[in-house]
């Protein structure tokens, strides 16, 4: 399979949205790319790092989004072109830097910087569906958003040109139905600009003359607004005389086309799609609004375009125009824009009856679903070390008997709080916040708080956001335990390397940051255990709980099973179930309590059975079974 740098100009290929973003950056001659992985943004840097060697560019997995943004800005200040990518939650981490960067711009050189932020409307793989577009406005940063995968590639390239011309960071907003959509894309020419990186040490660039800087930024944004008014990415399509205008951005456009065809409204309704969202292209929208009495706004997730439209209509004394959208409740103010939502909104506005599946079919499928359909909860893979870690935690907390309070973090272990998890983490918000919360609870003794406090994070999360919180806990003498589930990967987002793995994004060996030594150096007491050693891990947890003073760290180290299989390609053990010893359903510890997906209760024999094709051979079930009914034998290899 060719990589994204190998496609020939003019050829059409089938690309994922994130691949198109990467290809657009290559066509713009990107030199430096950085990110912290996060769904749905991760493939952008993955693909660029894959092309790094052949095109002599630099790509890194940074420890968090703020550091990634700072690295990208450095490259831009040195006259290069840089891309930083992150998911919506990551933008909040990077924002402190990006707001200050906006006040200075990128210096006087020829550098350019694009910040690709990938939102997750519907929160398919996120803790929230926050809309990053507001933060572009908040951070005085121009904002663009594509409507198709092809446009994603082309708009990234355009954003680089805009950034270089106006010497400012440009925000490119992606979203799940773009980033994780795949489509036919026509390739452009790869640009390679050989440049010597250099920075100007004769001047001081800083936002700390804030007032004049702010005024200058606002003036620059007005110039950018003028550029946006003439942008080829703001396109009207439809009749010249129309009954309704659809004003949309992002995935709204393709959904609108679909809905108009489904309802046979293409002769009555036109679509104005906006690719440049902030500063808002007032004139483009106003001129179109003058030709029509009513408008439907389609966008994900908040009413961002809608509020700017309403502001524009008020300023232009065009209050008689009717605005349908989130404010009017024609479109819900949450979730993604799907074709059916638009069909429903248009059916309501035009008083149409959309047949959908047909009443008889709808009834038949509803009846069958009610009778037969069951949910499919998410769970850890067979052989996942987290299942064993949480099993041990449950035992230790129960034995301790003091209602230990557990704060969690973001990673595969977050599945603990999903319906099929073990529900042991009591409070869970954002990357690194498990430790910050625990450090706070650990200070509450003087208010009568007498529960032990345990924070849980993964190895990549530890580097991302836990370290400052852990230093805070030590410095302020909090009473807490930090458990680090070290599975040697950023597993949830696709097994990316991180500082503890010994490899960088481009696959080169690098210094392996020693989590254990790092924790010890800041003054933590550190214990290390293998989560597959259930007894040893429970004992280690109980010992740490018993000590009840200071910051104690427990590292549970065992590679992610998927990562292990990729390198070792063998099962550790062959597992067998001794039917004469198995108590089956009346016991149920291995299946209904431990919930390994490779074990199930056979309704005919009433005994536990092994699903050979699912079993990874980790052997933990042998230690879980209270009746020694599961045996393990080391495999030959």
């Amino acid at each position: 399979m060719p990589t994204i740098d190998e496609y020939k100009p003019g050829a059409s290929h089938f690309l994922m949205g994130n691949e198109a973003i990467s290809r657009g950056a290559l066509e713009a001659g990107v030199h430096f790319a950085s990110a912290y992985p996060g769904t749905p943004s991760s493939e952008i840097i993955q693909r660029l790092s894959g092309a790094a060697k052949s095109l002599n560019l630099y790509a890194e997995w940074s420890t968090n989004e703020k550091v990634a943004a700072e690295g990208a800005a450095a490259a831009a200040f040195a006259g290069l072109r840089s891309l930083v990518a992150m998911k919506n939650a990551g933008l909040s981490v990077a924002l402190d830097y990006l707001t200050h960067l906006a006040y200075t711009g990128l210096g006087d050189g020829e550098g350019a910087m694009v910040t690709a932020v990938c939102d997750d409307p519907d929160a398919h793989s996120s803790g929230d569906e926050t809309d990053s577009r507001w933060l572009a406005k908040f951070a005085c940063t121009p904002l663009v958003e594509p409507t198709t995968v092809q446009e994603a590639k082309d708009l990234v390239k355009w954003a680089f040109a805009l950034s270089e011309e106006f010497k400012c960071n440009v925000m490119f907003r992606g979203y799940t139905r773009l980033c994780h959509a795949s489509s036919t894309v026509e390739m452009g020419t790869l640009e390679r600009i050989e440049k010597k990186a250099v920075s100007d040490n004769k001047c001081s660039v800083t936002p700390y003359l804030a007032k004049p800087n702010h005024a200058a930024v606002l003036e620059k944004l007005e110039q950018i607004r003028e550029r946006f008014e003439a942008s080829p990415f703001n396109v009207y399509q439809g009749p010249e005389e129309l009954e309704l205008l659809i004003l949309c951005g992002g995935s709204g456009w393709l959904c609108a086309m679909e809905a108009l065809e489904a309802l046979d409204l293409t002769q009555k309704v036109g679509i104005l799609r906006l690719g440049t969202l902030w500063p808002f292209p007032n004139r483009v929208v106003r001129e179109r609004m003058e030709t029509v009495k009513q408008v439907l706004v389609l966008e994900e997730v908040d009413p961002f375009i809608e509020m700017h439209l309403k502001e524009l209509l008020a300023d232009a004394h065009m209050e008689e125009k009717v605005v349908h959208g989130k404010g009017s409740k024609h479109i819900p103010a949450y979730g993604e824009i799907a074709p059916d939502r638009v069909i429903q909104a248009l059916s309501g506005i035009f008083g149409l009856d959309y047949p959908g599946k047909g009443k008889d079919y709808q009834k038949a499928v509803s009846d069958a679903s009610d009778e037969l359909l069951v949910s499919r909860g998410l769970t850890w893979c067979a052989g996942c070390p987290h299942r064993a870690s949480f099993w041990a935690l449950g035992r230790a907390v129960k034995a301790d008997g003091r209602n230990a309070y557990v704060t969690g973090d973001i990673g595969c272990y977050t599945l603990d709080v999903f319906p099929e998890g073990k529900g042991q983490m009591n409070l869970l918000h954002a990357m690194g916040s498990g430790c910050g919360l625990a450090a706070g609870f650990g200070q509450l003794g003087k208010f009568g708080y007498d529960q032990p406090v345990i924070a849980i994070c993964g190895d990549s999360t530890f580097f991302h956001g836990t370290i400052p919180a852990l230093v805070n806990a030590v410095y302020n003498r909090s009473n807490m335990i930090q458990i680090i589930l070290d599975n040697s990967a950023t597993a949830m987002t696709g097994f990316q390397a991180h500082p503890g793995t010994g490899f960088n994004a481009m696959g080169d060996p690098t210094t392996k940051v020693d989590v254990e030594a790092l924790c010890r150096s800041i003054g933590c007491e550190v214990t290390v255990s293998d989560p597959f050693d259930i007894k040893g891990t429970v004992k280690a947890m109980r010992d740490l709980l018993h000590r009840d003073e200071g910051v104690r760290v427990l590292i549970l180290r065992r590679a992610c099973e998927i990562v292990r299989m990729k390198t070792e390609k063998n099962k550790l053990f062959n597992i067998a179930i001794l039917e004469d010893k198995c108590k089956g359903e009346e016991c149920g510890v291995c299946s209904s309590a431990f919930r390994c997906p490779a074990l199930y209760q056979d309704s005919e024999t009433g005994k536990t059975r092994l699903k050979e094709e699912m079993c990874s051979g980790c052997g933990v079930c042998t230690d879980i079974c209270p009746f020694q009914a599961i045996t393990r034998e080391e495999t030959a290899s």
Partner: protein
Amino acid sequence: MTWNRDPQNLIVCGIGGQGNILLSRMIGRILTGKGYRVNIGETFGAAQRGGSVYSSMRVSKTRDFGPLVPEGRAHLILSLEPLETLRMLQFYGNPEILTVTNIQPIYPVGVLSKRVEYPNLDKLIQAIRELSADTWVLNATQIAMDLSAPIVANIILLGALAASEALPISVEEVEEEIRASFPGSKVDLNLKALRAGFQWASRD
């Protein structure tokens, strides 16, 4: 059923790890190579951990369609797991739909924890048949196990699809795609799986 609609709307579904995303990408690449405009929407990330995973696919001769098939508007469901087949029929089914489904259940983790009970398989298949204009039920997992590789059940399904004429894809074109996109050591196994699926579907 033959290729006669524009856009042709497909749902490819299964559970995380079964390789249905790979399947939809292969179909996408083959059809893009033949000059079609193909758009696929998928969600993955948290969903890959044992959850339902599906791709929604649009194929057109003329233009880009949005990645999401409107409700009740799929022409074909290609499924690696029967419960997921019904789940997709619930959203995308209609009286004209063709359903190609693997029969081998994968139990949700809720079955282990006894929160839910997997439906009776005969009833499930019967419901799928009643909700489809035409239904092909095959045990792709068993055919794959016979090749000593449960992982290739997805390619067996692709073989059946190539025989169905529901998409303008020939078995030779899929063979070419397998040779182009799989690592050398995996090509033979996947070609065998493809032919096994094709033969199953071409039986009398």
